[in-house]
């Protein structure tokens, strides 16, 4: 006997806002967070990115963290977003609650390691940052800020990490092993990522144009987002406001290439199909698809093909919101889960900014202008990572 998984809190920090309210306002206003790099110290400032509009000092001050304690930007953003999600849910983690914290990240504490790597090798001056480099330690810094969690885990599947964190959290609740889970992910901009994506030649020098025929790559972003999930019983006992239900999810592997998606979109197709199957919904029940839509030539065509495989001739409204937030890598799954839930609960279709021309091979164009006043009962959110780690999730309105 499995249990329903309900969402009772959202927290998000990205280039388009440091709260749910700011994020919603930016989405409705068509306000992108992509621009010139301000905080990351790099030689490649000519690539536009979407940074969280706060310095580390500002975040420490907002969180009452003394500056002499070692923190990475990834952890600070994570704490901020997790805190927002918990306060939205009206929840304080405590050992009596059977509550878990699951976070996705790709490079953990790399932002400090890439600054102090020579010190790591040569002297003892930055030892505190060695201890918080690995992904698990990076997650525990966030969990321990709050305390009270009885299960803590970290997932790393590149750009679908935080989606897989949500999937694991939902499973733990469904199967009755935990009552509440805070799940999502966090990743700040690093030189490591910026240079890495640059070597792959998939960074656009201007603002990204997902699903456009002329698209020329992605813009990196940074962000953190968590959702609070709980069992119906837990939500009822706490008299929590229920935002929506996690009705299905699917994880499949493209098993094609380490960085490229297959032309037939096999992994993506399987992920969407299994999410739909689990939710018991027909493709025609989906009212909006928040696509992974990075803006790279390869992803958008492969994902578009997969969408056509699943939805045939009646593709629902699709948009990628990466032209708002940039590609927040590990955090993109949970960032877009929050955006999808906001779209559903506020009845609007977020625009796919910068779209002009349809990709010839695809039968559909994305939503290019904000559409408000629509009824969305079920939303599908896609997250695909390097290595073909494809995950799709379906969120549904409560009846």
């Amino acid at each position, binding site marked *: 006997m499995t249990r329903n998984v309900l969402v009772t809190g959202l927290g998000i920090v990205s280039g388009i806002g440091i709260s749910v309210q700011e994020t919603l306002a930016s989405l409705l206003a068509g306000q992108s967070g992509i621009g010139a790099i301000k905080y990351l110290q790099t030689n490649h400032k000519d690539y536009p990115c979407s940074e969280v509009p706060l310095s580390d000092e500002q975040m420490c001050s907002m969180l009452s963290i003394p500056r002499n304690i070692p923190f990475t930007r990834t952890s600070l953003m994570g704490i901020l977003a997790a805190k927002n999600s918990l306060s939205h849910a009206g929840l304080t983690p405590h050992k009596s609650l059977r509550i878990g914290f699951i976070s996705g990240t790709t490079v953990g504490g790399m932002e400090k390691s890439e600054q102090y790597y020579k010190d790591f090798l040569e002297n003892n001056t930055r030892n505190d940052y060695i201890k918080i480099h690995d992904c698990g330690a990076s997650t525990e810094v966030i969990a321990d800020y709050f305390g009270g969690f009885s299960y803590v885990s970290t997932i790393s599947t590149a750009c679908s990490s935080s989606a897989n964190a949500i999937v694991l959290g939902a499973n733990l609740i469904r199967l009755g092993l935990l009552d509440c889970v805070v799940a999502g992910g966090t990743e700040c901009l690093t030189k490591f990522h910026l240079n890495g994506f640059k070597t792959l030649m998939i960074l656009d020098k201007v603002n990204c144009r997902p699903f456009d025929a002329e698209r020329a790559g992605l813009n990196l972003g940074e962000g953190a987002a968590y959702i609070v999930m709980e069992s119906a019983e837990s939500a009822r006992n706490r008299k929590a406001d229920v935002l929506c239900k996690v009705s299905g999810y699917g994880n499949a592997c493209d098993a094609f290439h380490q960085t490229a998606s297959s032309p037939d979109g*096999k992994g993506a197709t399987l992920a969407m199909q299994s999410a739909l199957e689990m939710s018991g919904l027909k493709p025609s029940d989906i009212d909006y698809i928040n696509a992974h839509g990075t803006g790279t030539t390869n992803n958008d065509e492969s994902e578009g093909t997969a969408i056509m495989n699943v939805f045939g001739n009646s593709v629902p409204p699709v948009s990628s919101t990466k032209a708002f937030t940039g590609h927040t890598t590990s955090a993109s799954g949970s960032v877009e889960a929050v955006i999808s839930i906001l779209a559903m609960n506020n009845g609007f279709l977020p625009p796919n900014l910068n779209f002009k021309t349809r990709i010839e091979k695809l039968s559909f164009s994305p939503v290019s202008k904000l559409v408000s006043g629509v009824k969305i009962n079920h939303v599908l959110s896609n997250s695909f990572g390097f290595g073909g780690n494809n995950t799709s999730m379906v969120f549904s309105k409560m009846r």
Partner: protein
Amino acid sequence: MKVYIQGTGNISIQNTFDHSGFPEPVWYNEPYVRCMDPDFSKFVSPNEARRMSKVIKRAIATARKCIADSGIEMPDAVISGTGLGCIEDTEKFLSAMIDNDEQFLQPTFFIQSTHNTISSQIAINLKCHGHNNTFVHGGISFESALFEAFLLFLDNKIKTALVGGYDEMTPSYFKILDRVEFWRKKHEAIDDPGKSTDLRICAGEGSVSVMLSSEKNEKSYASIDDMEILYQPESIKSSIEAFLDRNSKRPEDIDLIVTGMNGDEQNDAIYKTISDDLFGNKAHAWYRHLSGDYFTSAGFGLWLTASCIRQKYVPSFVSLNSFDTGNLKNVLLFNHYKNKNFSLILLSAC
């Protein structure tokens, strides 16, 4: 629900890969030791091998070995645990980026730097489109991967799964973690292997894959009956009691506990307390003196435990006290990381 271990593959600092039983232990005198690697040409083409780091080649080899051992050609899921992932390629990209001031970088090391490269490369090698995931939670990464597989079995989502723990060692990674006393005690020569509880062990690396199935047959090593991962439990003793209780077991029903002892006082204290207080110090085995200490050594622990159960035999070089090794029905595999993360795995003979 029971999940059966149907096959294993183990590349370690011991001669475990081409050996079906327990190889004669090799004792080391170095601070850290790298694996005894097999000939990888049977598993990956020379062309692929040139671009692959050690951790990837080993993972593919142990995955392939698991498939041959179990007779299960295509698992429904591939789930991996790794503490530091592809650290060698990460270091190469990072060093080049720093040394060349963000110029003249090649994509290969970046592409292969992410932790999920291991699970992905296994999936690509097997052409496996099933559930694929990677757990990166420090010294509990392997068990976290195993736990997700266990959940998917519990949910009837899968019938088979390939689960593994993979970590590689590099000189700079050893040196960096040594700064923060990660390797705990300085290495000293081992005089009395298997008997002395305060002997110091080396840092290591390894690649262990296990094939799990919801169905048992003549190939089954052992069954995993239950497992739990805990974060900062208020009392691990009560947690273990509750864990056994929900499996209708009392401590006296457990024939053997296998722990993550590594010779370090702070690390081992809890194992000794639990062994004495709950299990009357009757049958206690360890493995880190064989595997070396690394983030996913627990994978080696599971391999060892499953092998002991299948062979109804506990080699003297892993037992910490004398007991009847022929009567192995229920075994508890117990590991912790930094006294914060704990894993409990209950296994039994089929």
